[in-house]
């Protein structure tokens, strides 16, 4: 929701909070009018908008910076002066006191753990799995997985290229520039509160180096403007760094930073909106159907009317949107971290149950439930202790206390292993699953069985 808010706030030049609220209203209308089929088709349309909006500026910037038309290749290309783009960015980073761009700042084990948690988490997330219900034949499901990955790959191999382009451009544009000469995009983003600058050494130029420019995470703006017309902030830190840039804006600001024409910028905003709306709508659909159908109809009120079910679905959408909007206005940390944690939870809970259910015939109900409960518990526990803290009770413990140097984002990997071990041990200690279940497992292992299974 925060992404939607950013687009609207930049577009309509309003405050980010108002932007989020407008976004909520749009998603609400969107989710109320569409159904599963509607959402499938709009997601196709949105993918087209998204890929177009993402690729066009990437290609433009790639041509502009490296003369290469394919961003993936341009990323490894040379600049006008003959140096490689990546070498140049490494040099810039080193000069400013950051780690080398291609080096990364996390330990090898931690990267390993995070990557693994993300991968198995994806495999275990319910809204990805339900997509396969729309293709009845096994053969088609396989093919659609392949095609889906192909389209995703186009997007995901471009993303790192865009990151390199924008990072280089950003550093080159703002470094040691005087504020009065700064391009308009900088001031626009400053107006929405996502960029902040305080002239600490009084030279009127922007010093952008390693270190946090602020005390705390977000800038706190004061009324009124400074000597050069910048927005004044009350929580500037002692560090030399004078610039705060909200990392969420990088993709959207990228074409502006590169100085591309307005229509390209509009295109990116459209793409950003399409991406956010389609994800939000898809997730809302899963939430609302699982509440109205699986929970209310199947568990609580079996004789509910269709109309009543629809009302429950809409009510749950409304509640979900309000919660999402609140998180958008008061974001709980950096977006990527939040997402990684969600994947970690999925990795720690669903993934082992799904995989063991298919590959381990001795697996039974007790084992799977015990594994999921233990996995979720330690994952949540680790998250609370090391990431979020409990408000009023404790602050999150520092990175030096992490188990084996595993960040909360990567802990899903450990939680998953624990889940697997617990599941196997418990299942061996409890009775075998009934024959009906083993037969079903035998059956889903072959395609025609899967065909039958999809009919009920």
């Amino acid at each position, binding site marked *: 929701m925060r992404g939607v808010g950013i687009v609207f706030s930049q577009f309509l030049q309003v405050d980010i909070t108002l932007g989020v609220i407008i976004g909520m209203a749009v998603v609400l209308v969107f989710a109320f009018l569409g159904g599963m089929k509607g959402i499938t088709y709009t997601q196709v349309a949105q993918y087209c908008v998204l890929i177009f909006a993402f690729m066009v500026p990437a290609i433009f910037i790639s041509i502009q910076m490296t003369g290469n038309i394919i961003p993936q*290749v341009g990323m490894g290309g040379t600049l006008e002066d003959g140096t490689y783009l990546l070498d140049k960015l490494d040099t810039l980073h080193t000069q400013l006191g950051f780690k080398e761009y*291609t080096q990364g700042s996390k330990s090898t084990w931690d990267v390993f753990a995070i990557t693994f948690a993300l991968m198995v988490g994806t495999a275990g997330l319910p809204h990805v799995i339900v997509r396969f219900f729309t293709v009845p034949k096994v*053969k088609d499901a396989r093919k659609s*997985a392949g095609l889906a990955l192909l389209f995703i790959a186009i997007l995901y191999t471009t993303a*790192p290229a865009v990151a390199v382009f924008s990072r280089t451009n950003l550093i080159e544009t703002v470094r040691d520039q005087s504020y009065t000469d700064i391009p308009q995009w900088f001031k626009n983003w400053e107006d929405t509160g996502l960029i902040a600058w305080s002239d600490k050494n009084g030279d009127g130029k922007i010093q952008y180096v390693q270190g946090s420019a602020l005390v705390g995470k977000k800038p706190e703006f004061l009324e009124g403007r400074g000597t050069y017309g910048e927005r004044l902030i009350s929580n500037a830190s002692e560090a030399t760094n004078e610039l705060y840039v909200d990392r969420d804006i990088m993709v959207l600001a990228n074409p502006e930073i590169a100085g591309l024409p307005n229509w390209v910028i509009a295109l990116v905003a459209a793409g950003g909106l399409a991406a956010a709306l389609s994800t939000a709508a898809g997730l809302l659909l899963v939430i609302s159907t699982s509440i109205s159908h699986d929970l209310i109809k199947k568990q609580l009120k079996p004789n509910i009317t269709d109309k009543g079910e629809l009302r429950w679905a809409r009510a749950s959408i409304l509640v979900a949107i309000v919660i999402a909007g609140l998180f958008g206005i008061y974001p709980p940390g950096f977006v990527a971290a939040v997402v990684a944690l969600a994947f970690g939870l999925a990795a720690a809970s669903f993934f082992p149950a799904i995989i063991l259910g298919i590959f381990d015939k001795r697996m039974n109900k007790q084992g799977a439930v015990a594994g999921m409960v233990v996995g979720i518990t330690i994952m949540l526990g680790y998250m609370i202790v090391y990431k979020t803290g409990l408000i009023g009770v404790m602050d999150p413990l520092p990175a030096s206390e992490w188990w084996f140097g595993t960040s909360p984002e990567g802990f899903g990997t450990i939680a998953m292993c624990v889940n697997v071990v617990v599941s196997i041990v418990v299942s061996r200690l409890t009775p075998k699953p009934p024959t009906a279940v083993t037969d079903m497992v035998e059956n889903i292992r072959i395609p025609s069985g899967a065909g039958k299974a999809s009919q009920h």
Partner: protein
Amino acid sequence: MSSTNKARAYWKENVIYLAILLSIWFVVSYGCGILFRDALNSINLGGFKLGFWFAQQGSIYVFVVLIFVYVRLMNKLDKKYGYHED
């Protein structure tokens, strides 16, 4: 071959395919991109350090190829055991 034996044999071949493809998956994504990144980074591929390239692009290309290989292998396997649906 009885239908249970047939199903077992089919499943066994499927698991072998999975094991092979997943080892490639592991070597490319974790091996090249993360574990041996530093060693590979001494090799340059155009402007890329090789380990960095694997992490950012190379492994994704390999994934796409892997999944299409799996689709092909499995469709063949379905035919071999008579499980194909059309």
